[in-house]
C-alpha cells in the first residue's frame, strides 16, 4: 500500500514546490539559475524530509571532497539539485536546492585549471625518471605510473 503520510506536512512544502517551479521557469526561459537555502528556512525537519521525498531521486549523484564532504544529487526533476555540504568535521554547514543545468561548484575553476596544466608535464615518465621518482616509488613498493608503451 502506498504511504501517503508525507501529505500531512504543512503548506510550507507546497509553497517551496511552487517556488522551485518558478525558478525552473526562469531557468528554461532565461537560462538564469536559482538557489534556495534550505538550512536558512524555518522548516521543521519533517518538512525538509517531505520535500526531499517528493522531489525524488534523479540520474546523477556526485560526491565532492573539498574542505569536507559534499553530496550533490539531481532530484527526480531534471535541473533541480539537492546539495549537502559538510565541513571537515562532518558537520552539515549548508543544504541547498539549486535550480540550474550544472551546479556551479562542479565546474572546474579557471585558476585551478591553469595550475593543473602547469603541473601536467611533470607527470610524464621522462620527467619522473629525471627526478628519480620512479626509483623511489619502486623502492617503496608503490608501483610506478603506467608506461605509454
Amino acid at each position, binding site marked *: 500500500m502506498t504511504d501517503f503520510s508525507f501529505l500531512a506536512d504543512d503548506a510550507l512544502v507546497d509553497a517551496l514546490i511552487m517556488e522551485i517551479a518558478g525558478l525552473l521557469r526562469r531557468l528554461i526561459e532565461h537560462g538564469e*539559475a*536559482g*538557489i*534556495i*537555502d534550505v*538550512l*536558512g528556512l*524555518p522548516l521543521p525537519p519533517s518538512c525538509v524530509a517531505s520535500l526531499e521525498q517528493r522531489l525524488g531521486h534523479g540520474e546523477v549523484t556526485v560526491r*565532492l571532497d*573539498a*574542505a*569536507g564532504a*559534499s553530496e550533490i544529487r539531481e532530484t527526480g526533476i531534471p535541473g533541480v539539485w539537492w546539495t549537502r*555540504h559538510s*565541513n*571537515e*568535521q562532518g*558537520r552539515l*554547514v*549548508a543544504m*541547498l536546492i539549486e535550480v540550474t543545468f550544472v551546479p*556551479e*561548484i562542479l565546474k572546474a*575553476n579557471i*585558476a*585551478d585549471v591553469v*595550475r593543473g596544466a602547469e603541473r601536467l608535464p611533470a607527470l610524464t615518465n621522462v620527467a619522473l625518471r629525471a627526478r628519480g621518482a620512479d626509483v623511489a616509488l619502486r623502492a617503496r613498493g608503490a608501483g610506478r605510473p603506467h608506461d605509454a608503451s
Partner: protein
Amino acid sequence: MMHHKETLGTMLARCGFGRRGLLKFAIAMTSSLALPPSVAPVMAANLAKAKRRSVIWLSFQECTGCLETLLRSSSPTIDQLIFDFISLDYQESLMAAAGSAAEQTLREAMAANKGEYLLAIDGSIPVKDGGVYSLTGGRSNLSMLEEVAADAKAVLAIGTCAAYGGIPKAYPNPTGAVGVEDLVSNKPIVNIPGCPPVPEVLSGVLVHFISFGRLPELDDRKRPLAYFGTTIHDQCYRRPFYDQGKFAKSFDDDGARQGWCLFELGCKGPVTHNACASLKWNGGTSFPIEAGHGCIGCSEPDFWDAGGFYTSLAGGSATGWKSAGIAAAVGLAGGAAAALSTRIATPLEDAPASPPEKTPPEKTPPDKLP
C-alpha cells in the same frame, strides 16, 4: 606562514586547496550570515583576491575566556586559513614579545596600517578614578582605547564585557566599568556579546568584512543581525514543549528527563538574543539547554544583575527580565511573529511580562539547584 602580499586564493593553492573549497566555504558563510545564496560565488571571488588585514587586539578588564574560546574554535580547516588571512599584529596573551618590544610592535602596526586596521577589544574599560583599576605597561585601558581606536577602521567589541561592561560592571561596579560603545562614538562598532561569545560569529563578521569591505548588517544594539536577530527560545529544540505547556519543574523530574522546556527553571532563552541554539558549541556538539541547564542570558546587557539564574521569567524577583511575555504570550501559531518582534530588538521594558497560558506564575526559585 603566509606571505604578506599574497592573496587568499594564492595561499589556498599553496596549501593544496582548490577553489571549490573556497566556494563551499562561501556558501556556508552566506547561509550563516543570512545572505542570499546567490552571493556565494561573489564572496568566493572577493576572498580569493583579498589580502591580509591587520587586526590589533587589546585585552582590558577580562578573564581571557573570550580569547580561549576563539582559539579553540577550530581544527585546521579553511576557517583557520581565513583566520590566517588576518594579521594579528598585537595580542598580549599570544605574542612572544613583551615589555617595550611589545609596545614597539603596537606602534609599528598602527603606523603601517593607519586607518585600515581592525581593533578587537575583549574586556570592559574601568573609568572610575581616571581608569587606574586596569593598567598595561603603566597605561590605563581608557588611554589605550582612545589612542588605538582613533586610527582604526572599525572596532569589534568581543564578549559581553567589551560590549556592555559585563561582569565587571555588575553592581556595585567598583571600578566604573563600561563597554566600548560608551567611550567610542566616531567609529563603526560591532558588538559580539556572550560570556564567552560564539566563535563562529567572529569568523562570520571577519569574513564579511574581508570579502565585501564593510561590516554586516547590525541591529539596534550593534550586534550582527544574522546571529542575534532571533532569541535562543525562537530556535530552541525544546520550543515545541513550551508551546504544548510542558515544563520541567525541577532538574531531575520526569519532565526534565523527557527534555521538556526549562522556562520554569529560570531559562532566559525567550529574552536572550544569540546563536547558541543554531550554531551550538564545541564544533556543533550542543549548547547549555541541550545539556539540561537553562540559558542564563549571558549575551544580554546587565545579565548578572537581572535576577536569579533559576528564577522564572514569569515572576519572582527577576525584575530585570521584563520581556518574558514576548514569546510567552504567544502560542505555536504566533512563533513567527514572536521571532520577528524579537529580531527588531524591542527594548526589554516594552514587552509584557505575562506567563505562558498553561504555566502558573512561579514566585520562588525551584527547590532543586545544581
